[in-house]
């Protein structure tokens, strides 16, 4: 097995809710609530869950784009933060480390500065980190554009002159400019059309091979996650309910929530007429999560103890872990 690239331990991220006249803290939104996982080099790790389950916040916290509440993240042996030991990486080191870890965002219309040319956008990192002169960086930008499937002579154009799919390619080119090892894709294809989704997904696969990348792939689309990712974590209200390889999770889903997600996924296959599990009710408010197992309010198999005790993680295999009282 490859060495661990990202080690996340007991990560928590709470957003304070403020209210009243003096903006006093009146509670927390537990966006990420105690998650632990590793990503190995060359792996594609998938995070799947419904909106508000904390999957995007997880990505941003790992990249140190928002301050953590608790836990630690180690990237390639370098501790980014460890809240318990009160160690935080210093600013200069972090800026250097950022070259190795990048992020691709969901909305290709918001993630590119509208007033910069594509060449300037892609070469910005190289220039600001003083890794190349402006001229060299622009040459590199042209190479990266071609690599991402856009003709290099578009380098002087502006973002508004491209379609959503092309912008996402530009976004990917920018993230590759600093030769990173690790890329977080935060729903990178969710805003694209079906045929363009396939193109971008294929591009991400090719780039992974060519540049030895490791991905953390965040998505709500189970079909894409199953196909694209090696290992997958299913998130519900800030916690992992099940982690496993793509095969384990999809052939043998153990947590009822995973089963529900799978059965709710619409599949473009007329012969596949599965019996659906239709959940009752909505996702609970993350500011006020249910006691015990957070899923018990909607779980079709909930028992009495589910509302009382929080389930502990059970190891099914080396790679497959689940949190559910019903799994023995």
């Amino acid at each position, binding site marked *: 097995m490859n060495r661990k690239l990202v080690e996340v331990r007991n990560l928590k991220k709470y957003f304070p809710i403020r209210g009243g006249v003096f903006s006093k803290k009146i509670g927390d939104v537990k966006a990420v609530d105690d998650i632990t996982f590793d990503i190995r080099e060359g792996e594609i790790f998938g995070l799947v869950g419904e909106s508000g389950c904390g999957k995007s916040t997880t990505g941003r916290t790992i990249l140190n*784009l928002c301050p953590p509440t608790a836990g630690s993240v180690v990237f390639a042996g370098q501790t980014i933060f460890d809240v318990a030991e009160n160690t935080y990486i210093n600013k200069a080191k972090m800026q250097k480390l950022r070259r190795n870890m990048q992020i691709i*965002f969901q909305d290709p219309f918001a993630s590119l500065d509208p007033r*910069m040319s594509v060449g300037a956008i892609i070469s910005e990192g190289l220039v600001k980190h003083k890794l190349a002169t402006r001229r060299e960086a622009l040459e590199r930008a042209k190479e990266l554009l071609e690599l991402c499937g856009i003709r290099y*002579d578009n380098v002087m154009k502006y973002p508004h002159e491209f379609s959503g799919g092309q912008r996402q390619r530009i976004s990917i080119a920018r993230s590759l400019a*600093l030769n990173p090892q690790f890329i977080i894709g935060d729903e990178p294809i969710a805003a694209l059309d079906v045929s363009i989704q396939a193109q971008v997904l294929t591009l991400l696969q090719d780039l992974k091979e060519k540049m030895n990348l490791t991905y953390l792939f965040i998505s709500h689309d189970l079909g894409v996650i199953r196909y694209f990712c090696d290992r997958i974590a299913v998130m519900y209200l800030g916690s992992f309910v099940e982690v496993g390889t793509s095969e384990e999770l999809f052939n043998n889903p153990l947590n009822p929530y995973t089963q529900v997600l799978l059965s709710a996924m619409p599949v473009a296959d007329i012969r596949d007429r599965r019996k659906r599990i239709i959940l009752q009710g909505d996702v609970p408010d993350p500011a006020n999560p249910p006691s015990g197992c957070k899923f018990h309010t909607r779980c079709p198999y909930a028992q009495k103890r589910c509302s009382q005790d929080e389930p502990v993680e059970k190891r099914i295999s080396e790679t497959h872990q689940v949190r559910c009282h019903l799994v023995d």
Partner: protein
Amino acid sequence: MGVPISQTNRRLEQGLSPWSIALTRLKRNRMALIALGVLIFLVLIAIFAPFITPYSRDEITMENKFQPPGNGHLLGTDDLGRDVFTRLIYGSRASLSVGLVATSISMILGVTLGAIAGYYGGMADNIIMRIVDIFMCFPFFLMAIVMAAILGPSIYTVMAVSGFLSWPILARIVRAEILSIKEREFIEAARALGLKSADIIVSHILPNTLAVIIVYVTLGIAGGILGEAGLSYLGLGVKQPQPSWGNMLAAAQSFRSLIKHPWLWVPPGILIFITVLSINIFGDGLRDALDPKLKR
């Protein structure tokens, strides 16, 4: 890792930057262009005033007072026999420069403080915004009159007063704009690239607020000119013998002149009207041209 690029010398396709798009759109807006033409014309007149008129600005010829237009005096003469047309074009110097200087003061204060409040937030934001709130509680003219009374009426007082009283609005606009840009994903992408805060402000945030600043500064000049006119009319602004459109209007304070000598106050009134209208039309044109919702 190297990707071969075909060695053919394909010319790079030049993109349309948001600025050049704005320019094309502005060129299509006929009203704004006419307004701009009028403004340029007025500025040129102000600059070349001595070459346009044969009279000197303060030349008094008492025997010629209250001459109606014609007779060698295009717009007649005033109560001291000075040529009204001459004073009008010299007056544009005072009026326009008050507009420009006052707006510059308000721009420097407003943009700096608004940017600090917007980008850093927290305590700085709180303090600056409370100052803004306090400033916005005072009625403009009352404050201006008090300040002019303390500092003594002069053109510099007018500049300072309108400058210091109009920055809070700009500060608010800049702050709001920065707050919204700060939340956009490209700022987060820049942070993920490891850029320093200063780099992010200079190369991403300011260029994206520039459009809004330009529009409000343009419209602010109109406010400055109106402020000058109001204060000078009340005798608290530009002092005689230096002419300004505002203190020329003051002729209308005398009932006799209001009825019998309309050439004393109608021309400066019309010029103020035309100038402010042109600035507003041009400013609106700029706003439309710079609209960030770029058409795809």
